[in-house]
């Protein structure tokens, strides 16, 4: 972001020096005219709705009669009396804290293997990326059969090693792991980002380290990992934000009467049910704002912690 800002101010310095006042005003006018579609969308579809949603979270509203002001009641109920909401938060956190680190570890390992200069790597890269483009709806459909208790693909595989696999989607303590495994099938997207990052690391660094007699493990932990940390950081923020908003898989699986719903309910599916099944628009808006705060806090924590573990190349030059 710093780079884009510098380029913004660079051009403005040059232009401002050259142009008379009137031309500058005309340029401003053009700027606002050209970006007006986005500005209008920002006000009508984002800022306006956000303010309204904030207001709704302090009301009871069934969509048909006028909203009724109830102050902090919705929030108080969420945190003191609503046990399903507690489960929704717990499940979402467990899923996120399992998926995000595992996704980083697996994608790092796979990218590391793909980065070896061996023939055929392009083929493996494509195969590993493919699952990521499958729509979640289709993924969920097929993974019901991957996870089927008796004749499922996964338990069949485990059975070959004499392991008696659990009932996965039907078992309250395993269903979240099943969701994590399903999401990890799409690890290829992170792999591609990390691989691009690895290929951008200057080879002189490795050559210099090799002269100093550094081992393969040193190469990975002292050069590759620090140089990749900005990519990992970006990946981590995006995957945390996405995981906290998991919806489609949970919505589809919950429709099955055999699914342990309490073990699978997450924040957005619970919001959806409240708003569009029970017409509790105010209550659902309060859930939305709790989620907003959760996402904001997590993003902030990751950004705050980043100075300790994210390494930027230009830091060296200072």
């Amino acid at each position, binding site marked *: 972001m710093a780079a884009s800002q510098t380029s913004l101010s660079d051009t403005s310095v040059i232009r401002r020096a050259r142009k008379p006042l009137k031309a500058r005003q005309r340029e401003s006018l053009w*700027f606002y005219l050209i970006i007006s*579609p986005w500005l209008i969308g920002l006000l009508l579809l984002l800022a306006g709705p956000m303010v309204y949603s904030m207001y709704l979270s302090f009301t009871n509203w069934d969509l048909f009669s006028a909203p009724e002001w109830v102050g902090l009641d919705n929030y108080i109920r969420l945190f003191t009396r609503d046990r399903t909401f507690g489960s929704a938060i717990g499940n979402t956190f467990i899923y996120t804290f399992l998926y995000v680190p595992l996704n980083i570890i697996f994608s790092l390992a796979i990218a590391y293997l793909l980065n070896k200069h*061996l023939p055929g790597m392009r083929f493996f890269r494509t195969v590993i990326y493919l699952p990521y483009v499958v729509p979640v709806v289709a993924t969920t459909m097929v993974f019901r059969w991957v996870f089927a208790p008796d004749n499922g693909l996964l338990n069949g595989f485990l059975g070959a090693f004499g392991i008696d696999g659990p009932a996965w989607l039907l078992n309250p303590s395993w269903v979240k792991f099943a969701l994590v495994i399903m999401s990890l099938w799409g690890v290829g997207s992170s792999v591609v980002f990390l691989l691009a990052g690895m290929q951008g690391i200057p080879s002189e660094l490795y050559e210099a380290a090799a002269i100093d007699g550094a081992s393969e493990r040193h190469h990975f932990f002292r050069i590759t990992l620090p140089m990749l940390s900005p990519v990992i950081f970006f990946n981590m923020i995006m995957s945390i934000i996405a995981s906290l908003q998991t919806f489609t898989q949970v919505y589809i699986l919950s429709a099955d009467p055999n699914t342990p719903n309490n073990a699978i309910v997450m924040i957005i599916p619970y919001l959806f049910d409240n708003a569009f099944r029970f017409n509790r628009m105010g209550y659902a808006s309060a859930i939305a704002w709790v989620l907003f705060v959760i996402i904001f806090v997590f993003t902030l924590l990751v950004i705050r912690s980043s100075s300790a573990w994210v390494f930027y190349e230009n830091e060296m030059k200072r």
Partner: protein
Amino acid sequence: MNRRIGSAEALSTYLVLAAISVAMIAPFLLMVSISLAGDTATVQMDFHLIPQEFNFDNYVRVFTTPNIDIGRHILNSLIIVAGSIIGQVVVSSFVAYGFARFNAPGKNALFLILLGTMMIPGAVTLIPQFALYRALGWLGTFAPLIVPNFFGGAFNIFLIRQFIVRLPAELDEAARIDGVGPLGIFWYIIFPLIRPIAVAVAILTFQFNWSWFLEPLLYLQDANLMPLAVAVRTLSATTSAGATPMWNLVMVSSMLLTLPMLLVFFFGQKYVFEANISGGSASIK
């Protein structure tokens, strides 16, 4: 890393990658296998990774069976996707042109707001937007799914702006001297030059809208208007208690949902990888 790789290391690398690839491909194979299963096997839920039967007529039945009518749902998806692509490509490019080529007080702040909006969870605007579209009488039409694209998308605007900034400003300058106005410069100079990134945006918009689930489910309300992604899940939900879904036909529909994504990926991966990586690395530095 120009290290020489020993044959033992090469062999173990290949073995691990092959194992991972098998795990990645197996669910695809299972999808194909179930989609070719006969009705008897489906009722008994007797599915295998390696296809035991080859009922290719399943792929015809989803089109000819009246209460499935997958053709209609594919058409619905295509309408939503086409409308969204036109909106995103044209409007996002135009707004990006504004951010890349014009200076004005407040521009830097607006650009930061643009980046910030990408972090806002859709949940906080979902209910008011639903109320808005309801008040406009748009529920049960494609409008709530298509029209918002004509206000541009933050990520796309950002991607295209990064691209335009790298185009030489002399091009604009030369046209300006020839008396071409700002709109003409966009249409005749910038728009033709940003084709690679416009293609990437079109592909990303396709991928997003083709698999989109929540909002279509919410806004369309009429089963006949549902896009393919929602229709697949409707087909998988049992209609009457005790009845098993036609899993073979569900998987045929899942295949039809997946194949266009694979095709677009194969033809467009070059554009998307470049765009994602330049956008991604630009935003983290």
